[in-house]
């Protein structure tokens, strides 16, 4: 049998990397098991002429389409929003837009302010130092001083405005609406061993330049140098428990597919809002028949995605097309509750600079605005390089019927039951999406756009996997406590997006990592009585 480790972390993505790095200073024996491997930037799409075609296959954001050995299938047939993720060292930070807003202070007090959902058991101020630490570690760029966003101090200047940014800014000014350069994790200057952005285009499917921050090139090199062991191509099947109901280790399949048992004194789950409930439910036992850490019955419940309402059009002026990071500006104009709009809560907006020629041709043909035949060439030249987009990230409120369960049939390549998603968009979200589309249309018309098209929701837009093991002080209404420890299993922690109580209206990765650092800090402060 293997020697026990002090801390076993499952998942090497956004939160797993942050917690590993933070705990490394304790000099405990820390092991991270990751089902994927280290990425090779030389193989990233932007290194080849066929870079766009790869998005439809091996570099699809959907694990079901991608089907790499490192991926697990997800039954999301019963959801209008499909799950997207990436499985590797770095997790979904390998494949994300690098848009870097954080939750607002008001997002932690939703019940108090708006009478819906629940307040978080912690507030924004508790996370402030960890947001700052995380921004320094991930290396952020942006412009401090946004009047409608929490104050940030990005260590690098904002991205260039580009052609698209100027068009967006002018149109938003004409409307009198808020806009601001986005905080992003795109390095705009050389930073901590990362080369500055050279505008390879779409950042989402990994950055060959290394300018986009992903935890395989930020946290992990530091964590490994500090002594953390990272074991790749190891897929955890279940967490085991001992006679006292404490986590005793994990059963996993190693890179050769051989079943292994790794004992551990502390287990930390960092598998995202779908992978984490899947693992807990797959860890059911005689003592925990409904899944591990699930006495509340809330493991897998309250899944929140952020329905994206996207509207785009085509302006006369050239836009940045694929020659820039896709996101550069945001708006918080409609972030806060205004009941006159007919819904509670709100949405952030991320503007889209443009698209590459293959994407433009394929999508415009599907939308019916790019014809077949003789007129194809004329219309394509009108569309290509002229796209401008407005994407609203709508706050999804927690609803128990939106959930992750285990599929009774579907299994991954190791025979482990796969997750099944049941999700519907709420009436509140629908009203919010309609509001966003109306504002987006006004914005586009002000910019002079024509051929306006809508994706609402963006079908393959399930990037943000939140809420399925929520934190709280009441064990009957939450899965983990206010510092990430399971109410039921006192040496089991969760640090990923599944512990979100509400979702806010922004991309969550910055907040996920700040939470992971906060929980690691709490663990370090409580080492002497961690299990009390």
């Amino acid at each position: 049998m293997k020697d026990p480790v002090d801390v076993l972390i499952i998942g090497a993505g956004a939160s797993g990397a942050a917690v590993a790095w933070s705990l490394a200073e304790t000099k405990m024996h820390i092991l991270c098991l990751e089902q994927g491997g280290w990425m090779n930037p030389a193989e990233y799409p932007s290194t080849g002429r066929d870079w766009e075609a790869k998005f439809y296959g091996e570099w699809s954001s959907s694990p079901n389409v991608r089907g790499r050995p490192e991926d697990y299938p997800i039954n999301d047939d019963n959801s209008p929003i499909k799950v997207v993720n990436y499985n590797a060292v770095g997790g979904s930070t390998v494949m994300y837009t690098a848009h870097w807003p954080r939750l607002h202070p008001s997002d932690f007090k939703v019940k108090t302010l708006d009478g819906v959902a629940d307040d978080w058991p912690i507030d924004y101020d508790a996370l402030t130092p960890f947001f700052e630490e995380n921004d320094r570690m991930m290396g952020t760029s942006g412009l401090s001083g946004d009047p409608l966003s929490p104050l940030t101090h990005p260590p690098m200047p904002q991205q260039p405005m580009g052609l698209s940014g100027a068009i967006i800014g002018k149109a938003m000014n004409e409307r009198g609406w808020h806009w601001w350069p986005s905080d992003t994790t795109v390095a705009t200057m050389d930073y901590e061993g990362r080369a500055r952005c050279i505008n390879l285009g779409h950042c989402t499917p990994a950055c060959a330049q290394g300018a986009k921050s992903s935890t395989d090139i930020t946290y992990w090199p530091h964590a490994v140098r500090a002594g953390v062991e990272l074991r790749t191509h190891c897929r955890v099947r279940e967490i085991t428990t001992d006679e006292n109901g404490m986590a005793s280790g994990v059963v996993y399949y190693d890179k050769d597919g051989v079943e292994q048992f790794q004992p551990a004194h502390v287990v930390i789950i960092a598998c995202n809002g779908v992978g984490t409930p899947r693992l807990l439910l797959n860890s059911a036992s005689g003592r925990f028949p409904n899944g591990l850490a699930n006495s509340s019955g809330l493991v897998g419940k309250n899944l929140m995605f952020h329905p994206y309402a996207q509207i785009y059009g085509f302006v006369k002026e050239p836009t940045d097309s694929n020659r820039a990071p896709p996101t550069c500006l945001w708006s918080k104009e409609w972030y806060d509750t205004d009941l006159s709009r007919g819904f509670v809560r709100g949405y952030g907006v991320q503007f889209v600079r443009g698209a590459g020629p293959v994407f433009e041709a394929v999508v415009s043909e599907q939308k019916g605005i790019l014809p077949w035949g003789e007129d194809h060439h004329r219309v394509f030249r009108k569309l290509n390089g002229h796209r401008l987009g407005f994407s609203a990230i709508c706050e999804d409120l927690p609803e128990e019927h939106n959930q992750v369960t285990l599929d009774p049939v579907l299994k991954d390549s190791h025979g482990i039951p796969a997750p099944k998603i049941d999700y519907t968009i709420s009436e509140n979200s629908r009203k919010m999406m309609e509001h966003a589309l109306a504002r987006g249309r006004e914005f586009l018309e002000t910019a002079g756009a024509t051929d306006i098209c809508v994706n609402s929701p963006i079908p393959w837009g399930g990037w943000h996997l939140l809420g399925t093991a929520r934190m709280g002080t009441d064990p009957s209404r939450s899965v983990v406590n206010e510092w990430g420890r399971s109410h039921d299993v006192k040496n089991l922690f969760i640090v990923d997006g599944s512990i979100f109580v509400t979702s806010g209206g922004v991309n969550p990765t910055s907040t996920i990592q700040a939470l992971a650092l906060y929980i690691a800090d709490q663990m370090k402060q409580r080492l002497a009585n961690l299990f009390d």
Partner: protein
Amino acid sequence: MSEQITLTPRQRQDLRTIAAMIVPPSEEYRVPGADDDIIQADIIATLGRDARLVAAALDHLARLAGMPLSDLEPAARENVAQQFRIAGGAPAATLVRVVLQCYYRDDRVLRSLGLELRAPFPKGYVLPDGDWSLLDPVKARAGTLRRAT
């Protein structure tokens, strides 16, 4: 993950015909059609994981046409193409996407669009920094972040 599916000569013939209907050649823009030999060879060589759906789409097309697509009268061919486009589902969408993704990476086509014939990395692109005084109205309007207390 490429699948071992090879298109039959008939399927290849129909693929060429439908590709030309999607993107015909243009003298005005000095570009080939998607039935061009080089583009067709690229499609065939890189079908990979799309081969199964593309073959299914071509089988569907063959059923609609009842004969080689190119043998139909133009009006009938157009009618078949319309039915295929409307009711072809995922296989038809995949076929069209495969045609377009190969067409819009062809050197002659990219040159006609004024695009450089290269991968984005390592040269990248240059973006204008822009006029950040555009933010002045936003700063002047300010606004207040909603507090939690």
